[in-house]
């Protein structure tokens, strides 16, 4: 389905289009959330709310301001960050690292939704120490670039270029996996 068609169907509250959206994007969008919120019950609750929000706010989505996936991923990411910062989740358990994440994937191996944990580990191994650090905080802990800059005393420009460099590495290596 073309993106235009998909958006039109969502705006018409069409059941089939919504189902298509779910099948195509739920995995990636849920990943965005569960990277930040590790408790799987809470992550699913956040995902439920975020997905409902996506279908209900589709009228406010503006195609000229970015593509659909980016818009949806940002809604999921913000919902997860909001949840993480709310009182519902104690901050004590917030020691998320890439290793924890990969470990989480590995422990789930063998279920129907098998993930290529080895692939992810290989992918992350392509990053150097600085890049890995940035990805860990921004991608897995839900920090904003300015929060990373302030908390770890790294100049904002450096944070930006490291985010870029990390994504470039990941982008290049994604094809290989």
């Amino acid at each position, binding site marked *: 389905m073309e993106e235009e068609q998909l958006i039109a169907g969502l705006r018409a509250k069409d059941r089939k289009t*919504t189902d298509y959206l779910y099948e195509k994007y739920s995995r990636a969008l849920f990943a965005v959330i569960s*990277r930040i919120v590790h408790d799987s019950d809470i992550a699913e609750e956040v*995902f439920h709310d975020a997905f409902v929000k996506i279908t209900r706010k589709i009228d406010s989505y503006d195609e000229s301001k970015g593509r659909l996936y980016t818009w949806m991923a940002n809604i999921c990411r913000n919902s997860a960050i909001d949840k993480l910062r709310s009182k519902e989740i104690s901050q004590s358990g917030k020691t998320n690292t890439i290793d924890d994440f990969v470990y989480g994937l590995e422990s789930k191996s063998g279920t129907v939704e098998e993930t290529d944990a080895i692939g992810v580990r290989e992918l992350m191994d392509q990053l150097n120490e600085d890049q890995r650090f940035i990805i860990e905080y921004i991608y897995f802990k839900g920090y904003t670039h300015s929060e990373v800059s302030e908390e770890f005393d790294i100049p904002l420009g450096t944070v930006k270029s490291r985010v870029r460099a990390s*994504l470039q590495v990941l982008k290049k290596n994604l094809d290989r996996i």
Partner: protein
Amino acid sequence: MDIQSYIASGKLELFLLGELNEREREEVLALSKQYPEIQQELNELEEAMFALDELTGTKPSPKVKDKIFASLEQDFKKAETVKPTAAPVETKVVKLSPWKPFAVAASLVAVIASAVAIFYANKFYERDQQFTALLQEQSVMADNLNQVKLEYEQKDTQLDRFVAGDFKRVEMKGEGFEMQKDAKVDVFWDQSAKEVFVAVNNLNSLADEYDYQLWAIGDDGPIGIGLVNPGEKLTLQQMDAVAQAGAFAITIEPKGGSESPTLEKLVVLGEVA
């Protein structure tokens, strides 16, 4: 503009992560429309992010999907009943019984008709009240007009008499008396017709239990010829007929007037010249 260094700045990644402020976001959007290289980089980055998310993600459990679609059921239903054409695939399946649109149309007509009826009933009631108010106003105006007419006729008759008659003006003043130094009342007297009018120029108002009384002082002593209303200034007030008088005077008397004047309460006096 150095596009490569702009791309290398890391702004595009932050754009995709939703971390730019409004101004920076607008800038990225504007530049991506202007430079195909930037647009392409954005597309590639988005695809990479999606691929990364897809690769690292697991599907949420099936019960989440059920719950989401249960939450959205109302939205689908509403869309399906309101706009059946919005879901072309399902229109073939969903058959609307023919009575339904008619019932909907009929109740719509009924509601509209009621609304219109109530609207006009209100309007009618409003107009009816306005009409009643106008009628009342009109009758008040007619009364006023009659009164004015009457007054006019009176004045006209007075004027006729005044012009036709031989009136002598007698000025009565309060200068020599204690009651009201600046009091001034004029008497107009037609000796042959025996008619007397007074015109109050300046006379204090009285308490309710007193009246001003006009006296004609002739050979037989003072004769009360009427009560003077101090409020009707500079209009002619007709008094009783007098054939013979050497002077006119006004005194304050108990309400209704007295047989003979209370001289201590003499207000004004004027001698016939």
